[in-house]
């Protein structure tokens, strides 16, 4: 079974994100970028399933500017077999991404698609679900456990109330959660080998998708600075504030 793993290049989680002075977006100049941490977990899951003999080939795909190839290369250094880079500069929305991934799935015919549950930049949490809907495939989202069986796969999902087990048919789209695994470090020999692994290039047009955003960003601003708190003199005053100002009771 072939596995397709979708990865995104995002601002490194250690970096303090700053808004551009013209308020058109977030500052990306000279900012350290890395693979979305949830996508690392997706790559790791595919590698573990390959090591267990359940997956035969791992294809890492990323959509984005030229530098997205570095992110693909990170996946190859971890242990994926080859990459596909859909080159596109500028804004992308989940639906356009899902459509491009659908076209790639139809071409590559994987038995399973892994995505991170969301990217830590936009926090959209939409692409895997849209991809599954477009393909008409089952979805297993927020997976913290993946177990293949004769009937398909048993997915443990992290839901608000705890854990939920669902049995799904294959092929399927999975979105993985934080506790599924701990991604490995790429070993030095694998980092060296990664540069020899192939990355195929393609474009949204080749995939028959119009990537133009459907939303217009008016302005991006910093969240308001946290205001100082107030001291209340009595329980009555506290209750009044909670009811009338905070409107939580």
């Amino acid at each position, binding site marked *: 079974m072939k596995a397709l793993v979708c990865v995104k290049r995002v601002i490194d989680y250690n970096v303090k994100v700053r808004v551009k002075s013209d308020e058109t977006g977030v500052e990306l100049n000279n900012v350290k970028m*890395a693979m979305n941490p949830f996508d690392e977990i997706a790559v790791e899951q595919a590698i573990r399933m390959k090591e267990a003999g359940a997956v035969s080939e791992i294809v890492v795909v990323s959509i984005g500017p030229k530098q997205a190839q*570095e992110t693909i*290369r*990170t996946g190859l*250094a971890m242990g994926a077999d080859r990459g596909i880079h859909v080159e596109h500069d500028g804004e992308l929305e989940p639906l356009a991404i899902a459509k491009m991934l659908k076209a790639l799935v139809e071409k590559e015919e994987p038995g399973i698609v892994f995505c991170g549950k969301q990217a830590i930049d936009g926090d959209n949490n939409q692409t895997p679900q849209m991809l599954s809907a477009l393909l008409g495939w089952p979805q297993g989202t927020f997976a913290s456990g993946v177990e293949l069986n004769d009937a398909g796969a048993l997915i443990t999902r992290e839901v608000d109330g705890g854990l939920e087990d669902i049995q799904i048919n294959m092929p399927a789209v999975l979105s993985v959660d934080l506790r599924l695994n701990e991604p490995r*470090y*790429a*070993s*030095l*020999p*694998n*980092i*060296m080998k*990664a*540069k020899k692994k192939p990355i195929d290039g393609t474009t949204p047009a080749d995939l028959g998708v119009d990537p133009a955003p459907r939303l217009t960003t008016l302005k991006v601003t910093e969240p308001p600075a946290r205001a100082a708190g107030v001291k209340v003199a009595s329980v009555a005053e506290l209750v009044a504030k909670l009811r009338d100002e905070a409107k939580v009771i």
Partner: protein
Amino acid sequence: MDFELNEQQQAVFDMAVGFGQDAIAPHAASWEEEGTIPRAFLVQAGELGLAGMVVDPEAGGSGLTRLEASLAIEGLAMACPSVSAFISIHNMVAWMIDRFGDQALKDRYLADLCSFQKVASYCLTEPGSGSDAAAMKTRADVTNEGFALSGSKSFISGGGYSDLYVVMARDGEVLASNADTPAAKAVSAFLMDDGSDGLSFGAPEKKMGWRAQPTAQVQMDGVKIAKGQRLGEAGRGFVYAMMGLDGGRINIAAAALGAAQTALNKAVEYAGERRAFGQSLDQFQSVQFKLADMETQLQASRIFLRQAAWKLDQRASDATAHCAMVKRFVTDSAFEVANQALQIHGGYGYLEDYGLEKIVRDLRVHQILEGTNEIMRLIVARHLLDRG
């Protein structure tokens, strides 16, 4: 001219930093207290290819350039320079065997060394000869089976801990053919296994820094060495030892740089949090100037270090001089930066819990070992004056 790390170099550095923060940093203080580095950790590092970084991949190594290896050492040292430097010394020995050993020696040792199943130490310095290393007294007498090593080697990182020791000694065979052979040309390198008869160790040394790595005197009393355990050519041991040190000096500088960067990061953070006279420390110009100088020293160190590593990769004729300049400049700068970072922390810097005093103690020895910084000046001056 492009001064950016390429994608692969960045990946090497990022891996080392991440692995160091995960696998070393949380234990650095306890390993220092216990005076040893757990073998299980080294095996983990070996699985990531950190034990034979510049060894040929055919022999189980990672096939890195010197520059790439120095990035890994710098990244690891951000967590602990003592552990990083220990890994560097092991890598130096693995490289010597890969570069100068015959096939039998490579087959015998490299797979285990590159996976850190075996740990190797480098034995050059003696109680009576440090900077003047060629004046060594340890000798390899010729026997029917090969050689018998007698003498002692001091300040040996991994002494009593390692599985393999590469020992530089006066070669009886060379001296038998010409008793007047100059000291440096009478030295050969020998590979000595732990557990050999006649091999013993001094008590673990009590040190100012680098406490995580066990250090002891290595004592040899007629240790039998098979003929095939002589590394490379007879009489070339001193040259091999010096060539090993070229790369070793790059890594000792890289380890100092990584640790000093951590010290600076801590100082910047502390100066932003700590308040005095109504403002945070980083609002005082005296602190700002200090931080600016520290940053400048580290940036200059970094670019100079990478250039020297690149020269070593190119086998440039001035590589040795550059390695010496870098070792001197970077280790002096790094110590100064760590010391200033401690100063910015005030009294807290003097407390173990803040992690500054350890860096200062650890980095002090970087100015002394793998050739003192005075000997580095000697190498640089010779190179400079010969050229004129």
